[in-house]
Structures are given as C-alpha cells and as structure tokens.
C-alpha cells in the first residue's frame, strides 16, 4: 500500500528567554496509507497541531522529512496543496460573510467551479443556512463550514483537526458517516480528535503522539491487542473458591487480581490454560471472558495522562518515549 503522508524525524524547537528551549516535535514519525481513515491522537500540548501546521507549511520545522502524495515538503507544497484539504484547530472565518460567500471566495481563489460550493454545503448540512452570516452560527455550524471548506477541493488527502468539536450527537454521527464515505470513495483522511470512542469506531489506523514523539502507531486492532495484556475475567460457581483459585493460578505464573466476586488475570496467552488449571483442582469456571481494552485506556496508559486522585496533572506531564519507566516502548510498536 502506498503512503499518502510520510513524516520522519520531524523536529520543531521553540526558544524563549523566559522558558528556555522546548521541543514541540522531537523526532516525530508518522505514516498514513492511501484510502485509510487515520486517527492522530495525543494529549494537549503533545505536538498534534504543530505537526499539522508544519505539514501544511504554516510552521517551519527545524529538521526532519515530510512528504505528501510522494512530494517532498515544504518545497513541493504548492504542487500538492490543491489535493490537500485541511482544517487546523478551531474554525475561523470572517464573521460578516455568509457561508456561501466564504466558500465562494475560496473556490474562486482555487479556480474551482461555483457548483462545488453548493455540493459541499449540501454534504455538511448547511444548505438552508448558507446565506446567513457566519457570526450567527453556532460552534457546530462553524465546524461544518470548516469541513466544507476542506472538502471544497475534493482533496485526495483530508486533514481534520478536531472536526467533531461542538457538533451535536447527530452531527457527530453524520461526521462519522461522512468520513467513512469519503474513505470508501478513495480519499485518505487524517483525523485528529480527543473523542477516542469516535476514533476507535471510524479509524483504520492510529498514531499516538506524546511530548513531540510517536508512542504508538498501527492498525487500531493491533494497537488495542498489543495493550490488552491478555487480561481475562474469571468467575467461579462458588465465590468461596476464589482464594484457592488465585493461589493455583499464581503458582502457574499468572498475575492475579482479586475482586470481591471474580478474578482478573493478566498475561494469559490462552484462556483454555486457565480452565484446565482450575479444573485440575476441582474448581469449575462459570465465566471466562477476555477483557477488551478500549482506545481511551490505551491512550491514557501510553501517554501517562490518566487522572490520579488528589493530583492535578499539568499539560506537559505525559510520556516521553525512551525515558526509563515509561510506557510505550514494548509490544512491537512505539518508537
């Protein structure tokens, strides 16, 4: 499969007399294959928006390599710009223009046919409100307009930064459906979002960034599987047998967590082993269920941003790849 977007060793450093040197991007890598919906995740301040801005020529990198559709950036950006639709951060438009005017001016600047404006307005559900001034729009409507502006070029690569921000539940579902349809039509979509449930639902693959470095990447199922750690929930017919079962399994080298009415086992390659070990001791299993991890828990673990009671995490407190004792370096993924 060919790569539509490639980033290797991207670096962006900010120097400030007050705050010293800060590496917004510290050798970041990313690869997005053609026709995928690719999730781009990271905590606040991790470098997501810096990456997208750098990719789109708004920020000059200090090092590294970027390419879109096989064209090296930023040198060839003017060549590929017509095939890349993007919204970066919150949508911003001139408040006194209508949506139709806004898109019409962009279409004219891009030498696109006027009817394309109506097509994208229809697509994002703004057809009936297109003549109203943008300043009267809700955040969700502005978001729809932003997506419409990104779709105007009918791009081969669509980059959307928080497209679901401000959308109502119906709008989020419509956005999800739109992303899927676009990908099915051959468009590659890079989606940056904090709504991890959405990402898990609609993305084929993900890249997770923390403190300017990639901490995980790959197909969603692969990333989830790599972090499921073989966790299995076990219930027995008699709750009173749980201590004995825990002892048996621990002796067999399985990590056991004891809960009031069940056990949580980790590091289990084959659940059948558990069943066999317990049966040999006359303990009969009533439930043996692999515990599925979701993207949110994987994200929180990888970026070390899970809330801790009594602590107030600061924005730059997350995982840096390569530091001792941090997650994200094992399991065949991560930098």
């Amino acid at each position, binding site marked *: 499969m060919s790569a539509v977007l490639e980033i290797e060793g991207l670096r962006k450093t900010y120097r400030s007399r007050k705050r010293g040197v800060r590496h917004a991007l510290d050798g970041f890598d990313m690869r997005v294959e053609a026709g995928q919906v690719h999730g781009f995740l990271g905590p606040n301040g991790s470098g997501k928006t*810096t990456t997208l*801005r750098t990719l*789109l*020529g*708004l*920020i*000059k990198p200090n090092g590294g390599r970027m390419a879109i559709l096989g064209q090296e950036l*930023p040198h060839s*950006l*003017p060549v590929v*710009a017509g095939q*890349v639709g*993007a919204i*970066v951060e919150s*949508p*911003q*438009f*001139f*408040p*006194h*223009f209508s949506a139709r*005017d806004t898109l019409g*001016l*962009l279409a*004219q*600047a*891009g*030498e696109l046919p006027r009817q394309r404006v109506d097509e994208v307005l229809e697509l994002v559900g703004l057809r009936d409100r297109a003549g109203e001034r943008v300043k009267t729009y809700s955040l969700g409507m502005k978001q729809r307009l932003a997506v419409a*502006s990104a779709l105007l*070029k009918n791009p081969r690569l669509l980059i959307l930064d928080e497209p679901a921000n401000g959308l109502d539940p119906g709008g989020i579902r419509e956005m999800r459906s739109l992303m899927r349809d676009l990908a099915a039509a051959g468009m590659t979509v890079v989606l940056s979002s904090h709504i991890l449930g959405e990402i898990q639902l609609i993305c084929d693959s993900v890249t997770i960034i923390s403190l300017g470095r990639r901490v995980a990447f790959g197909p969603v199922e692969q990333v989830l599987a790599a972090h499921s750690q073989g966790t299995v929930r076990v219930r027995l017919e008699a709750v009173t047998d749980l201590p004995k079962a825990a002892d048996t399994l621990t002796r067999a080298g399985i990590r056991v967590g004891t809960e009031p009415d069940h056990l949580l086992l980790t590091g289990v390659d084959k659940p059948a082993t558990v069943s066999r070990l317990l049966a040999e001791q006359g303990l009969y299993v009533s439930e043996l269920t692999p515990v599925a991890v979701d993207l949110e828990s994987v994200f929180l673990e990888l970026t070390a941003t899970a809330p801790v009671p009594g602590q107030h995490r600061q924005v730059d407190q997350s995982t840096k790849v390569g530091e001792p004792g941090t997650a994200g370096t094992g399991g065949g993924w991560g930098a």
Partner: protein
Amino acid sequence: MSLYVTELRRLFKRRLTRLLLVLLVLGLAGVATAFSYSSHKLSPAVVAEAQAKADADYRQATKDWERTVAECDAAAARGEKTEERYGPDCGRQWQPQPEMFDPKWHLPYQFDFRGEFGNFIAVFAGMLALFAFIVGASFVGAEWSTGGMMNLLLWRPKRLAVLATKLAAVLSAVLGVSIVLGALWTLAFWLIGTYRGSTAKMTSGAWQSTAISGGRALALVLAVAAVAAALASLGRHTAMALGAAVGLGVISEIGIRIAVGLAGVRFGDRYVLSTYAMAWFEKQWKLLDYKSCDFAQGQCNPKELLITWQDSALVFGVGTALVLVAAFWLMRRRDIS
C-alpha cells in the same frame, strides 16, 4: 490572477469598505456642496454694485476729510494749536484718493479654479488617505485576526505571493476609487468655478500643473494604503496599524517638536513629518529660523531652509519601502500559529 480577483472581490464585499466608501463619498459631496454656497459669481451687476459702494465710501471719506480740514482751519484761526490733533497743515496731505477705495472690498468671495483648486486637491488627498489607511489596515489585519489569512495560505501556500496579492488588491482598489472620485471632485470644482466662480486662465500648462499635483496626492494616498496594510501584517492585527499611526503622530507632531524646542535645534520642524507632507503638496515648504535674528537691531530677515517635494519623496519613499520590506520579510520568516 484568480487570487487577485478574489481578493478584490473580498475587499469590496467587506462591510467596512462599503461603509467607508459611502462615508467618503458623502464627505466629499458635503465639502463640495458647502463650498459651492460660499462662492458667488462676479456678474457685471455685482461688480457695479461693489464699484458703487467703493465710490460712496470715497465720497463719504472726502466729505469727512473736508469737514476735518475746515474744523482745523477754524481752530487755527482761533489761535489754538492744531498740529497735535489734526497733523501738519491740518491733514491736507491725507486727502482721500479714489484708488484707495478698492471695489474688491465689497465683492463677495469668488472661487478661482486656477488659484485655489490645489488646496482642494490636498483636502481630497487627506480624506482619501484616511479611507485608504483604514481600509488597507483592516483588510490585512482582520484577515490575520479572524484566521482568514491562514485559511488562504492552506489554499495558496505561497506566503509572499499571498501578501503581495492582497497588497495589490488594496492598492488597485484605492487607485480605482481615487481616479473615479478624483475625476468627480475635479468636475465638481470645475462646475463650481464655471457657475459660481471663475475658471479663467486655465491654460494647458495650468491643467498640467493640476494633474501633477493630483499625481503627487495620489502617490501619497497609495503610500498610506501600502504602509497601513504592511503595518497590519507586521502586527497581524488592524490595531497594530492604527496604534502605529497614532504613535507616530504623537511622537512626530508633539514629541519631536517639544524635544527640538527644548534642545534649541535650528529648523526643528525639518524632523516633523507634517513638514514633508506640506512640502509634498505645496512643491516646497519654507522653514524660518527666527533665532538667527536680533530684532533689537531693527528689521531682520530670518534664515531660511527650503524643504522641496523631492525631499518629501525621499522621506516618504524610504519610510514606505522600509515598512514593506519588514512586512514581507516577517511574512516569510514567522510561523503562523
């Protein structure tokens, strides 16, 4: 080309541009209309009436003089001293002469196109410069502050070309508005001159001089628009241009005047921008150094320093070029975040 047309369309779609254009037209029309009422055509009847008033004044003055001389003679005959009160020879030497009573004093004001239209070119340029400054600054500044510039750069990732195109759109719009309104302004004052004033002596040379004055005014207006747009781009906000203009005005017109006054600098006004603006419109502007005179010794002609329009061209040209170069340099260098 499509970007240029788009930007031109965007400029005239803006509410501020339309509002300011309407205000500019109303302002110019107001000035021309008010002025047309203050000018009166000097018809033969008006001239004759003024002549009659001058003659009457002459006759009255002669009568008063004759009476005064007669009073003086009578006083002298009574043996009184008259010289102190009536002057030598009873003031006979001060007999009124007809040429002392100019009929012009009784004429109403009449606009003279050849002699005065230059002042109205300056008025026109001042109003247009204000329009150009606000439109130029807000067109670029508001685009930055509302994210329009970033959106545009996502479509056209050529920073210098985008800024240059926006600048070209502003300048060509201001140029177009200036030419159209300038032609109407000239026509309005030509009509005022024709029907309520004078258009005499408008030779081809006079028209040429008027055209050159208009050209200089236009150049200043375009420079103001360019500087406003460039300043707004430097600060990425309209307020940057407005703040810089106010700051420059305060520093140049008040601060520098006070400083050079305290320091006793000769021809201190040569460091003040408005001096160069005056020289630009008037072709030259004379500064006088009254400190070079000792009036106790009698009459004195103070030393002079002549500021020419070429000096103004140098000051304004270099200033405009510096701001533009800074704006393009920063546009190329700075991150857009």
